[in-house]
Each structure stands twice: as structure tokens, then as C-alpha cells.
């Protein structure tokens, strides 16, 4: 495996691919990546810095933490402040502000919020604290949601009745289709999310690309993966037939992971949900099915969702659609920083504003 990684990080191959890309200088190519890890990898590897100027990379809504709405975080804090509740969460959510405090700030007021690496680790917390209710903050796309579904099923099988989830899970296809339909966004090609595709497969991508005539690639995350995928995507854009190429075959099968995908829909069903910075996208969310409602913190604690939520003061929606650059936001690197984020894209390290802040603030990228 290490030998493979050496090849996927080979500077000579990277340089060769970039030279080849520089031959395509006749027009501008607007490419949107749809995975936060791609956003980070493109910055961190330096690929973004060396690309020819006519190839424009736009960071779409590919980070599940960034698109989690304010009302979700407000409810998470409310739960964590309850005396008989322990909230468990991925570390990324601890600093996310809602309309009030973040979980990290609430901890100083006595909130019990604990970081777990895996949703399954929450079951151990629940069995060790039988007098408390343990609520896992369940955000994520198709890569993550099957693992939460598995955790809920395990809790039921093992009779762990003090475990619940606060579902804020989302699915990608409806959001990608919204971007494909938006004439202002004017995307030439999609960088489909590699790890979402490892579960969801590539069929949904092929349907969207064909329907809207916007080609796409499924790509890995190493520098050579990224440059090769950009080169292939530029060629597909010139061919203009809305094709999708899977260039991450070592991980992504065209059919996806059916066991994981089916487990997700056995436990969850589609619902409307708000994408922070974008608004409500009908049927792009996931909620627990009736058979699992005893595990549903929204129902058990009678919590309210605000589908009409609006966030004032930042231009996250326009940034997520690639209409504006982070540096065009009046709050960027002033009122809004990674330590005190205001908007969606600065919240997680994989958000486009956070990535621009860390790697591109002083460069013209």
C-alpha cells in the first residue's frame, strides 16, 4: 500500500499531468468539487496553486458540518444542557455556532458534550450511564449515515434504550441537481464526492450529468489522483456529452456498497431539510423511520425544526454555489475566522472559507 501511495504522490507524474493540462488554454473551465476532503486535498497538496489560471475550482456544499443549520446546533446545545442528557458528537461539530453558543462554549456552563470517533462508541457511553439519555449528533452524507443506521440497529438488538440520535443527515443528489439546474452557477464539470460514491455508487452521478449535459469524474484524494481527474474532466468537457468517468476504482464500485446503502434506507427515510447557506432542499434530508422512532431525539424531546431559517450577514450561499470567492465576503478573515466562525463555510476545517483562510488567504487562488 505504501508503494502505491508513493506512485499516487509522485511529483514527476504530477508535473507531467499539469503540463498536459496547460495545453487546454483556449477557454475557461469551471469545475465544482463536492466533497470537503477534496477541497482540503486540492489546497494542501498544492494542486490548486499550480493549476493553469483558466481552470477554476469552485468548492460546492460538500462538507456536512458546514451545511448543518443553526436550529440544529441550537437544539444540540439545548439537549447538552439538560441534566439527564449526554450529547456525543464528531469533534467537528463542537465549535459550530448556532444562534447562540457552540457546544464547546456550552461545556463551560456545565453542558455534557463528548467527542466520539465513531457513532458506535456512543453505545458504550450509554451502557456506562444507564441513568442518562445519550444523544448522538448525527450529521453526514451517504458515507456516514449507514454507520449511524448500523448503530441504531445495534442499540435495538442489544436493548440499549437510553441511546438516541438527533438526525441532521443529508443526501447529495438533490443538492447537486439544484446546482446543475442553476444557470447562474454555470458549472462545466463536477468532481463527484469519492467517499459518498463508495456507498451510493456512480449511477446517480451518471443520471445528473446526462440530464444536464455536465460531465463529471469520481476521483481519489492523492495529488496524482486529483490532477489526472482534472485532466480527464477537461477532456470530457470538450467532448460535451455529459459522461461520468470513475477514476477511483480502487475504492468506488459503480454499484456502490449495497449493504451499507440498504441499511441506511432500512432505518432512515427521506425528508425536507435546510442546508445552511442555501435553504430548504426538499427530500434531501433523512429522518428515522417510524419503526425506530424510540431512538429519535426530535420526537422524544419534542424539538422544533425551522425550515425557513435565514442567516444574515454572510454570503455563504453564494460561496457554496461558486458565485463569489470567500475573499469577496466583507466578514472574511475579519468578523469571521476559524476561531470565531459566522458562516457555514468557515465552520469546519473542510469548508471553503476555512480552507481559503488557512492556505490561500495571501494568494490569489
Amino acid at each position: 500500500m505504501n508503494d502505491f501511495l508513493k506512485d499516487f504522490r509522485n511529483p514527476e507524474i504530477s508535473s507531467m499531468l499539469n503540463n498536459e493540462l496547460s495545453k487546454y488554454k483556449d477557454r475557461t473551465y469551471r469545475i465544482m468539487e463536492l466533497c470537503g476532503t477534496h477541497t482540503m486535498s486540492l489546497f494542501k497538496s498544492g494542486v490548486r496553486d499550480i493549476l493553469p489560471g483558466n481552470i477554476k475550482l469552485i468548492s460546492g456544499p460538500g462538507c456536512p458540518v458546514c451545511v448543518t443549520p443553526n436550529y440544529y446546533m441550537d437544539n444540540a446545545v439545548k439537549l447538552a444542557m439538560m441534566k439527564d442528557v449526554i450529547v456525543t458528537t464528531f469533534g467537528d461539530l463542537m465549535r459550530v455556532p448556532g444562534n447562540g453558543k457552540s457546544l464547546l462554549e456550552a461545556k463551560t456552563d456545565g453542558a455534557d458534550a463528548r467527542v466520539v470517533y465513531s457513532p458506535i462508541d456512543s453505545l458504550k457511553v450509554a451502557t456506562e450511564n444507564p441513568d442518562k439519555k445519550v444523544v448522538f449528533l448525527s450529521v453526514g452524507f451517504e458515507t456516514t449515515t449507514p454507520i449511524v443506521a448500523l448503530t441504531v440497529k445495534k442499540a435495538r438488538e442489544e436493548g440499549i434504550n437510553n441511546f438516541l440520535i438527533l438526525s441532521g443527515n443529508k443526501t447529495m443528489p438533490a443538492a447537486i441537481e439544484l446546482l446543475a439546474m442553476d444557470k447562474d452557477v454555470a458549472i462545466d464539470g463536477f468532481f463527484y464526492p469519492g467517499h459518498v460514491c463508495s456507498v451510493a455508487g456512480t449511477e446517480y452521478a451518471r443520471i445528473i450529468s446526462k440530464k444536464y449535459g455536465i460531465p463529471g469524474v469520481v476521483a481519489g484524494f492523492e495529488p496524482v489522483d486529483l490532477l489526472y481527474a482534472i485532466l480527464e474532466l477537461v477532456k470530457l468537457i470538450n467532448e460535451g456529452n455529459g459522461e461520468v468517468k470513475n477514476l477511483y476504482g480502487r475504492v468506488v464500485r459503480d454499484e456502490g456498497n449495497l449493504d451499507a446503502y440498504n441499511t441506511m434506507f432500512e432505518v432512515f427515510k427521506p425528508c425536507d431539510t435546510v442546508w445552511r447557506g442555501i435553504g430548504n432542499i426538499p427530500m434531501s434530508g433523512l429522518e428515522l423511520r417510524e419503526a425506530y422512532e424510540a431512538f429519535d431525539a426530535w420526537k422524544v424531546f419534542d424539538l422544533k425544526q425551522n425550515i425557513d431559517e435565514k442567516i444574515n450577514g454572510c454570503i455563504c450561499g453564494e460561496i457554496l454555489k461558486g458565485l463569489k470567492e470567500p475573499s469577496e465576503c466583507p466578514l472574511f478573515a475579519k468578523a469571521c475566522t476559524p476561531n470565531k466562525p459566522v458562516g457555514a463555510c468557515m465552520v469546519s476545517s473542510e469548508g471553503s472559507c476555512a480552507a481559503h483562510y488557512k492556505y490561500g488567504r495571501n494568494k490569489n487562488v
Partner: protein
Amino acid sequence: MCLGLPGRVVELSDKKCIVDIMGATRQIAADFIKDLKIGDYVLIHAGCAVSKIDEDEAKSTIEIFKELEEVMHE
């Protein structure tokens, strides 16, 4: 957040799967992967294997890069 790490399966039973991730070992859930064997590489996300890494596919992708390099140097 959708970070995936490659890990090698070092211990496997009906109830338990231990992987080596760059020298660190950890128990993971392997419920979604069929026909797993010791020595297989898997992509791990949030404590669960989501895909088996296909070494032959990795090799053939690298071959494509090498062929491209040869063509461009000609």
C-alpha cells in the same frame, strides 16, 4: 468530515475486526464488507469499513499514469 483512512485487517472473527492504520491498531465495524480476509485493505470512515480497497485496480490506475508519462516523453 467524510475522511477515509486506509487500514489493513490484522485480526478477524465473527464479532471483531482489528485494523492497522499506519501503525495504530483499532477495532472497527466490518458489517458492510463481504468476504473480508486478514491482509485485506479497507477504507475506514468513522470506525467502520465502507469499502474494500482493490489492489489490482490501484495497480492498473498506476499503469495508466506510467503509460501517459511514456507517451508524453516520446
